[in-house]
């Protein structure tokens, strides 16, 4: 069966690192470094400089992925919850800045599951013959929507972008996608929201400033995330024809260490195959999984072709898992001042 494979990996992080003490001081939070570490596993996160938008991080991560693959994309999919503007989409501007005239380019909104939704969509586009080398970007700047005074979310999120370039490949090629599982439950839409600013609650005069912040009902989300991540990962694994013991790498959306441990334990995966960046980068939303793919740790530890499972859960509610083998591409990493 013809496959689609990851042939280039790129990332872009803002240079500025913000530790827990700084987050606590900014928001005057009733919290402590120790409390945040114990509850979330997060020690610090990167933050985009004022004036740096999601599209800026996306352009540099995408250019890095193109350099890593040494090939030009013919389709651009950008997963984000924090686009540069409500209109138009961010992807066409990113494609333009990359010097890719006339390529189809669109944003995809599936919150923290966005990158895997886009990856599975790009895979289907290639196999349908709609394009040959799609670029899939996950980029977010949650620092623009998180309320610094909200103890439940202020310390969780970081900014960043990651990107992969895909190309048609033979079965068995390193980086080849083998199976995907996507799902949603809009019954849980109220658990993760930015309530205002859309057509449901335009609030153009900003009479309800509170409704423009990102809000999350953490405890409910925890239970839903554990259940859906475990189930979705299990389905993708079965569809790939793999057992948990076959996996050499497990990369889950970097939401919260306690959720990640709970899911990996349920799947019976040993600590040695779990890879993440939560401690240093926090939850980077759509960027978290491609940022792990670009990380030095797994790159050094894993041989190309290693069975790998990616899984994510996010607002919507949405969930997604992709089974693939570890790519042979050497990642290119960028830092933005």
């Amino acid at each position, binding site marked *: 069966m013809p496959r689609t494979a990851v042939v280039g990996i790129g990332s872009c992080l803002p240079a500025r690192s913000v530790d827990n003490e700084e987050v606590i001081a900014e928001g005057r939070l009733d919290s402590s470094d120790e409390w945040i570490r*114990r*509850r979330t596993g997060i020690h610090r996160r990167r933050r985009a400089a004022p004036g740096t938008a999601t599209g800026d991080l996306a352009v540099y991560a995408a250019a890095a992925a193109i350099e890593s693959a040494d090939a030009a994309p013919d389709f651009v999919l950008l997963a984000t919850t924090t686009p540069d503007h409500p209109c138009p989409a961010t992807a066409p501007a990113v494609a333009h800045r990359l010097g890719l005239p006339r390529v189809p380019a669109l944003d995809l909104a599936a919150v923290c599951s966005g990158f895997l939704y886009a990856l599975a969509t790009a895979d289907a586009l290639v196999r349908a013959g709609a394009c040959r080398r799609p670029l899939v970007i996950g980029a977010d700047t949650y620092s623009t929507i998180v309320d610094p005074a909200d103890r439940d979310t202020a310390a969780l999120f970081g900014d960043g972008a990651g990107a992969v370039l895909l190309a048609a490949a033979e079965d068995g090629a390193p980086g080849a996608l083998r199976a995907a599982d996507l799902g949603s439950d809009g019954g849980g839409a109220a658990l993760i929201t930015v309530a205002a600013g859309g057509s449901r609650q335009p609030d153009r005069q900003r009479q309800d400033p509170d409704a423009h912040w990102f809000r999350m009902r*953490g*405890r*409910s989300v*925890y*239970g839903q995330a*554990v*259940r859906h991540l475990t189930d979705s990962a299990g389905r993708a694994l079965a569809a790939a024809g793999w057992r948990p013991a076959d996996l050499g790498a497990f990369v889950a959306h970097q939401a*919260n260490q*306690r959720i990640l441990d*709970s899911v990996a334990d349920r799947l019976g995966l040993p600590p040695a195959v779990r890879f993440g960046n939560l401690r240093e980068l926090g939850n980077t939303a759509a960027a978290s999984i491609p940022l792990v793919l670009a990380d030095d740790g797994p790159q050094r530890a894993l041989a190309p072709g290693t069975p790998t499972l990616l899984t994510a859960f996010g607002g919507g509610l949405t969930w997604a898992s992709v089974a693939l083998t570890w790519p042979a591409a050497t990642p290119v990493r960028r830092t933005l001042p």
Partner: protein
Amino acid sequence: MDQVTARIAAVLTEKFDVPAEQVTDRVSFRELDLDSLSIVELYVTLQEEWGVPLDAEAADADTTVGQLVDDVRKLLDGRRPGGD
């Protein structure tokens, strides 16, 4: 100790490292040093085990082991044929 209580006590000791002698009906989650995410994890684990819709939102640090046992028992009884 009945089956439900015994199983909850076992989960608390095995998964959350609570000393077995601390688990009594009247002890609260706070006294067992379980934070809010541990409480949700406990409820999710018990939901999976018994297939009952336990509501972690209704629990907090002051909820006691005895109250949890009662909730699980009610859900299990309600599920039995001939129950309410």
